[in-house]
């Protein structure tokens, strides 16, 4: 009796696996065979994002698929950590592809130190590693394909200075301690502020925290601190360095009835922020180009595999979006969600 039950268990698992994974089979195994000389060899590249459900990563994947279609000699395996934003899970995925022996790994590291060891191991095993989106410390990689965040922050600063005619009271609400990309944006922004002696920086040491909720609370406190006795804002312009801090500040401005009265520039987009841009409550957004990031990551990796030496740092560009230019086809493409 027991024996029969136990073997049923084994059989059931085998069946479940067959059923669960079956439909993928045709696409899963590539039959390139590796023949046909160096030039038209088909490459398999594993692309490992920070997560798989966020819109930003969907756009990166769309770009990678564009490159896959265009080049024709590459197969992209898109596989993020099973638990979103889990560093150990991401380490495992890198190890898996190293062990399987793909031709190259493109990685957006969740942590600039924790992913160091698996990346080194991949290199040792002969699998070249390319980094996209966020930097990895102390590892010599094929290339680093990402937004130049400092430049993006500087663009935001210049736009904001122009909005208030080069003089006035400005608030910078930072994102979070230890977040590399946003720290660069903040630095770039502050650099642009320095070029305008007429601008007085009221606050640049407060952090919004990880969520829209924490950003909202911090924004409310900041705004009430600088509020004039007559109820007017007391601030001429505000910059926030990412989507969640921008969204939180926007909510606080709307609640206080100040939205549109204070010049406000943010970073990254979401449906809510685009709406605010149209309504004139937000006066500029700096957008990254995730689709281009995914495209360039794959293209650069393939070039490197074909023996070329790509540039060590590839900027995927940042664009200033305002109410005026948001309908232009190039810009509208950045705003659409795949």
């Amino acid at each position, binding site marked *: *009796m*027991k*024996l029969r*039950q*136990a*073997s049923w*268990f*084994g*059989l*059931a*698992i*085998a069946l*479940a*696996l*067959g059923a*669960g*994974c079956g439909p*993928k*089979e045709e696409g*899963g*195994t*590539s039959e*390139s*065979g*590796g023949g046909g000389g160096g030039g038209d060899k*088909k490459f*398999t590249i*594993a692309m490992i994002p920070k997560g*798989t459900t966020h819109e930003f990563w969907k756009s990166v994947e769309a770009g990678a698929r564009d490159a896959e279609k265009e080049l024709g000699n590459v197969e992209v*395996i*898109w*596989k*993020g950590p*099973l*638990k979103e*934003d*889990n*560093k*150990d899970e991401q*380490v*495992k*995925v890198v*190890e*898996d*592809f190293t*062990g*399987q*022996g*793909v*031709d190259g790994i493109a990685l957006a590291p969740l*942590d600039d*130190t*924790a992913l*160091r*060891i698996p990346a080194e*191991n991949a290199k*040792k*095993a002969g699998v070249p590693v390319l980094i996209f989106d966020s930097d990895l410390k102390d590892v010599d990689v094929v290339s680093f394909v990402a937004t130049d965040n400092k430049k993006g922050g500087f663009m935001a600063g210049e736009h904001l200075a122009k909005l208030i005619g080069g003089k006035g009271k400005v608030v910078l609400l930072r994102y979070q*301690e*230890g977040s590399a990309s946003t720290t660069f944006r903040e630095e770039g922004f502050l650099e642009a502020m320095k070029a305008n002696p007429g601008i007085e920086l009221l606050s640049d040491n407060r952090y919004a925290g990880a969520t829209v909720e924490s950003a909202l609370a911090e924004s409310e406190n900041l705004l009430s601190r600088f509020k004039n006795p007559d109820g007017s804002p007391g601030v001429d312009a505000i910059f926030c360095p990412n989507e969640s801090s921008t969204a939180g500040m926007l909510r606080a401005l709307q609640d206080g009835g100040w939205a549109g009265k204070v010049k406000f520039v943010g970073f990254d987009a979401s449906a809510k922020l685009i709406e605010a841009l149209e309504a004139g409550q937000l006066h500029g957004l700096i957008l990254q180009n995730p689709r281009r990031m995914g495209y360039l990551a794959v293209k650069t990796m393939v070039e490197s595999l074909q023996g070329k030496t790509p540039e060590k740092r590839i900027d995927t560009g940042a664009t200033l979006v305002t109410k005026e230019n948001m309908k232009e086809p190039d810009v509208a493409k950045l705003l659409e969600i795949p």
Partner: protein
Amino acid sequence: MNRHPLLSWLSRYANVAGLLLALAAIFLFFWTQIVNTEGIHTFAKPENLQLIARQATIVGLAALGMTFVIISGGIDLSVGSAVALVSVVIAWFLRAGYDPAVALMMGLVAGAACGLLNGSLITGLKVTPFIVTLGTLLIFRGVAKWIGDEKKIDADLTWLNDLLRVLGKDEKWKVFPEGVWMTILLAVFLALVLRSSRFGRNVMAVGGNEQATRYAGVAVGKVRLAVYILMGFFVGMAGLMQFTRLSVGDPTVAQGLELDVIAAVVIGGASLSGGQGSIFGTIIGVLIMATIRAGCSQMGLSNYIQEIVTGGIIVAAIGLDRLRSRRSA
């Protein structure tokens, strides 16, 4: 339970055989499916076996402790948080300039302290383990963030980070890195404790029938407390391995690890109502989970397929557990 000894030996053998069969079927499936561009089946290569073993260590160590907890009729939901706390403690001591051995010891102490707190609350307040560890899940996570000042703690690389390294060509004779061997030795030790020591028999008895065990003169509270301290030690070991792999102490790591651990133990044949389970079964359960993980990943399957498959196997295992207990009742 008073069956002929041969019969009970046979039934245990059948359970283990079923598990091994399941593991073999899963492994074979991935072996046939995963072919690299040169047409080589890579899944059974020694490097890949080593990889699965390394990836299984953290869940494996925690699952060893959890086997005792579940056999004793308890549960521990705070595992993931405690692992994060231990990794933060180790990184904190390293950053403060202490010797790696001291940092390691302090990590194990932190783990055992977590277990001691869980055990004391459960036996002292007589609250169900589910509720107590649901509370300490939040407490440990909070303390980890507090120690880390809400950030991860970077520490320099030391020999601690080599415990689960990829073995180089000159040390292939070791087969596995030290961390994996430590896990195997601890598993053998615990299997002996569970099967042949008085403590092991008491744990089984407490989980099987608490009232009868108490009447038989066993200090049930003390057994419970010891089980949770043991769990804490193994959480400490798991936290050490977590730090080894990441080289940073990260207060947000290992969220939901407890679910992987419990799933592995249950797949291994332990009963959530207590009194039943084995270390060998748990190890197979851990390996089944790790093999599915690595296999789905290496096939490049989407995460949702992987989650559905893993979930299906857990449900199948628990279904079998129900079937077994109904037959034997």
